[in-house]
Structures are given as structure tokens and as C-alpha cells.
């Protein structure tokens, strides 16, 4: 069965860029969300076994979204994809249950590397 991937980013360009970077050999069904709130809704609908999550977003940002996922024990694997590459941001998302952190712009090679590391690919 195809893996449901959710790409959450407020920028349509970033969502597109991310979708392009998902390796073609991965049997995946990609959905999109523009902020954390939409992402949580989509996960509930079964669209986010794997979540690529941006940090700086309106409504509900990535940091808060991670906290909600952790607090409610929501079943999804989160990989943060962000332009905020400060050491503090990295530590905070890893402490809040993210599997990994990929700095923007995400490349196909980096995505492949991370997915392989976690046995997804």
C-alpha cells in the first residue's frame, strides 16, 4: 500500500519544491497542508503517515504542531524541513520528537538519505 506523505508549508513554492524532491521510486500518495492546523486535520484523515513539516508558518507553526503531535501521541513520523537552521531550532524540534531535520531547500539526495536511514525507502 502506498505511504501517505503530508507536506506542510505555508509557501506553495516550497510545497512544490518538496514534492519534487520525494524520490520517484517511493510508492507514495502526497497531500498538502498550509499550516499546522491543516496538517493535524489531514493526519486525522489518514493522510500523514510521514509528515514533512516547515517551522515558520502562520496560524500554527511547526514547533507548536510538533508539541500537539507529541502531547496527543498522534501516530505520524515527522521530518522537519526548515530554513531556520539555528542550533536552537534543531535542538528544540529533536527534543519534541522529530525524526530528523532537513535544511531548506531540500534536495532529492538528502531526502533519499534520510528516508533510507529510517527504513522508509
Amino acid at each position, binding site marked *: 500500500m502506498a505511504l501517505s506523505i503530508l507536506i506542510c508549508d505555508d509557501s506553495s513554492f516550497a510545497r*512544490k519544491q518538496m514534492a519534487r524532491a520525494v524520490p520517484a521510486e517511493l510508492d507514495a500518495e502526497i497531500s498538502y497542508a498550509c499550516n499546522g492546523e491543516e496538517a493535524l486535520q489531514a493526519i486525522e484523515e489518514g493522510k500523514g503517515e510521514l509528515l514533512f513539516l516547515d517551522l515558520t508558518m502562520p496560524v500554527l507553526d511547526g514547533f507548536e504542531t510538533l508539541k500537539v503531535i507529541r502531547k496527543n501521541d498522534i501516530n505520524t513520523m515527522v521530518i522537519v524541513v526548515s*530554513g*531556520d537552521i*539555528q542550533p536552537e531550532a534543531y535542538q528544540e524540534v529533536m527534543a519534541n520528537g522529530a525524526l530528523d531535520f532537513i535544511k531548506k531547500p531540500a534536495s532529492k539526495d538528502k531526502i533519499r538519505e534520510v528516508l533510507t536511514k529510517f527504513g522508509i525507502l
Partner: protein
Amino acid sequence: MQDEVKFSIDEEQRDCYQEISNVAMGQAADLLARLLKVKVILPIPQVNLIEVNELRMALTGVHKDDSVSGVCQGFIGDGIAGEALLIFNDTSFSDISRLLNYQEAEVHSHELEFLMDIANILVGAFLHGFGEQLDVGFMQGHPSVLGQHVNLSELIQPNHYRWSKTLAVEISYQIDGYNINCDLLLLFTEDSIPVLNNKINYLLED
């Protein structure tokens, strides 16, 4: 009519400019964070096509009556040119001295040096990140003082610019735990807009 299209940006392009600025801003903030050992709070960058005489109104991070200090720095590369402005709210300086462990008096004598240094770092890193994504190599000039302890209207004088429209990218940086506010403003010349749009369209293509 054709000119109007050439010198305009649509929503898709604006989103792309914003995302590219977001990545570049993050790289600049990371450098600053490591250097000053602080956490920089990142905003969502504002991208607007404005008339140069609307510039003062467009600045959201600093208020029109506040006392401010600022430096500017020109840049150029591959048919794209512009000017970067770094504007500090003067209320920031006492916390800057706290951050750098300076005595209050020391800060005043080092204020200009600090402004120039921060401008070099933020502008350099931003342009590098922005250019990398668009495949443009930018060169930056030396920073020069726009004004110290003045209000915004004294700092930004529209007749300083020889172009009328500008593509403005505004980033309001804040430092976590400190009362330090600064605005980084990248102003691209009118003639740069079609060149930039071409590069953006290339990125937007499938």
C-alpha cells in the same frame, strides 16, 4: 501595458520570492546566532513591489517616530542591483551592550562599528543565500552610515534613489530574551525586476 507586466509580480512569484528570502534569512540568522550566542526569532519575510516614496510606510518593524540608526550597503550581480538597509531601533543599544558585555559608555563609541559589522554579516549572508538559489553571484560594497539617532523620515529620503519602483524584501529580526529589534531591507532596482522575475519563473517551472 507590456512595461506594467514586466515591472510587476503576481502572487505565485511573490510566494517564490518570499520562500527564497525565508531560506536566505535563515542562513543569515544562523550566522548571527552563532556569533552572538543568541536565538534569533525569525519572522515571515515581507515581499512587496512599492514606490520608493512609500518606503517609510512600508517599514513595519520600526515606528515612524522612533529614534533609529541605520546603514546601507549596495550590491550588484548578473544584471541585478540594489541596496540593503539595516535599521536599528535606538532602544536596542542598551541591550546590545548587555549582550556584548560592554559598558554603556563603551557602546556609544562602538555603536557605528557594531552597525557596520552586523550589516556586513547579515547582508553578506542573505545575499549569498538568495543568490545561491537564483544562481546569481552578488558583490557587496562597503556599508555606509545613513544616520544615527534620527527618525525614519530623516533616515530614508526617497530622492536618494534614482529609480521609482522597487522590489522590497523586509525582514524584522528580533533576538530572544533581549529588546533588540532590527529591520533588514533589501531594495532591488526597478531594472532588476524583469531579470529577477525571469530567474523566479525558471524556478517555478516544472
